[in-house]
Every structure is written in structure tokens, then in C-alpha cells.
């Protein structure tokens, strides 16, 4: 991750969800995890498009599972967070923390 380059909000949430689901997860599991934790009902298309973008950046990797009858004969694609993805999460967290640090902010008084 280049200096000054931050994860988008959806990228950040999806990467965090994937990091929580150790050992790889497919798109629907990621979507369920986000819905369970944040209440946001994200479309599966948005999840996969973002996972693709994260894979192109080298933050996640994917591998194909076995096709099953419950899936209409379609194979699963499982994603897992790579070292670069973990670094990107750390940098984003640090950036947010440093922006929040300092004098009392407006949102704290609400």
C-alpha cells in the first residue's frame, strides 16, 4: 500500500470481515458477516466486485472449491487475506487513529 493511499469504506469493511473469517470465506459468508455486525444489507454483486478489486491490489487471494448440487453445480470461490491486506488494514487503522487524536472533537460532544 502506497503512502497516502487509503482503503475505500467498502474495501475496509470487506477486508475486516474477511480477516475475522479465518481460513478463507466465499462472498455470501462475507456478506452475512457484514450484515450481522453492521446491519448493512450489501448486495452480493458489491461484495464480489470489491473482492475482485482487493485481489487485483494483492490484498486478498482466492482459490476455487468443488462444485456442489446445492449451488446448481457451481464451484465456490474462497477468499483469504494476504500479508499486504493485513498491512493495508493496519495503515488504515493508524490513519484513522491519528486523525481522531488531539483536541476534543465535535462527534465526542454529541
Amino acid at each position, binding site marked *: 500500500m502506497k503512502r497516502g493511499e487509503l482503503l475505500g469504506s467498502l474495501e475496509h469493511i470487506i477486508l475486516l470481515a474477511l480477516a475475522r473469517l479465518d481460513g478463507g470465506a*466465499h*462472498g*455470501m459468508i462475507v456478506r452475512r458477516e457484514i450484515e450481522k455486525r453492521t446491519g448493512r444489507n450489501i*448486495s*452480493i*454483486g*458489491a461484495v*464480489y*466486485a470489491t*473482492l*475482485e478489486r482487493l485481489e487485483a491490489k494483492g490484498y486478498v487471494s482466492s482459490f*476455487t472449491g468443488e*462444485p*456442489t448440487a*446445492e*449451488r*446448481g*453445480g*457451481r*464451484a*465456490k*470461490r474462497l477468499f483469504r487475506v494476504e500479508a499486504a491486506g493485513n498491512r493495508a488494514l493496519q495503515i488504515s487503522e493508524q490513519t484513522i487513529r491519528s486523525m481522531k487524536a488531539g483536541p476534543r472533537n465535535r462527534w465526542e460532544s454529541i
Partner: protein
Amino acid sequence: MRYDSAPALACWLLESVVPARYREAMLGDLIEEYNLRTKSASPLTASRWFWSQACRSIAFTVWSSLRSGNWLISMSIASGVYIVMAILKLTADLMISKLVAPQQATQVVLAPVVFLSAAAIGGCVAARARRGAMISLALMVMITVAVSIERKVCAIPVPWWYEFGFLILGPLAVLITPALIGLLMAGTAQPGK
């Protein structure tokens, strides 16, 4: 193409729009979740959920492709097909008016047949080249018909629903014909299923 009991039209729409890179995995996830939901909820609720996911995923994909610039290639292909379609339709219209049926009433009856045939052929050609091109073509057809209605291009007096039919059925012919052909071919390839 196997959709089990999941809404076939929604599946086809997704297959038409979603990039091939993650199409199979995404559809598989949706079908698996749909099958799980049909066990715990009514089929209607599960279908509603499936459709909601499909529509929102399509909207997201179209918006993403517009932002990434992929639409330029799709639009170029769609424009080419659109020109060929227009030539095809004008030639057919000319032949009908000059040779086959010069009467206005016959032209009113034959015009939708020619229009829908041209739209269906155009849809199939665009879908073969690129799925995004098919959607662009459907939009172009819709805009053309809307402009024609607004400018009152049709010289023959016709009821409002006649022109409205062109507006709805034109883009639908572009989008649905390749799907119908696809389903038909899948049916012939797997006669047992």
C-alpha cells in the same frame, strides 16, 4: 445453465451483466442461499430476496463499469450494431411500403413485426460480442423510440398504447431474445434436465 428452482430470469439477467471472472461463484452463492432460504421461509419470500439481490447487484455492476470506462467499448459495439439494425429496418420498411403492402393499415400491422425482429437480431449480435453491449443497445433503442414518440415521427395516426408498446417491447426484445435462445440451446443440450 442450471438454476434449480431459483428465479430463471433473475439468473439470466445476472449472467448477462456480471463479469465472467466472478459470475459462476456469485450465482452459486446466490442459488445456495436461495435454497437455504426456501427451507426456512416461503418460496415467495426467498424469491423476493433473490430478486432484490439480483437487481442491486446489477445496478452496482453497471455503475462500476460506467466508472471504470468499460462502457466505452460496449457503447462502440452497440453503436455498430445499432447502425446495422437501423439499415435492416429501413430496408424492410421500404420494401413493405413499396412492394408488399402500400396501404397504411398493413404498414401499422407490419411495423412492429419488423421493429421487433430487428431488435431481436441486434440483441443477439450484441450479446455475442459483449454482454454490456446488449444493455447499451437496449438503452439506445429505448431512447430512440422515446425521441420518436416525443417528436411525433409516425405520420399515421395510432393509439397511444401502440407507440408505448414499441417503447417497452423494443428494449425487451434486445434483452430477452439472447436469453431465450440461450435457454432453448441449454434445453436441447441437456434433454434429461
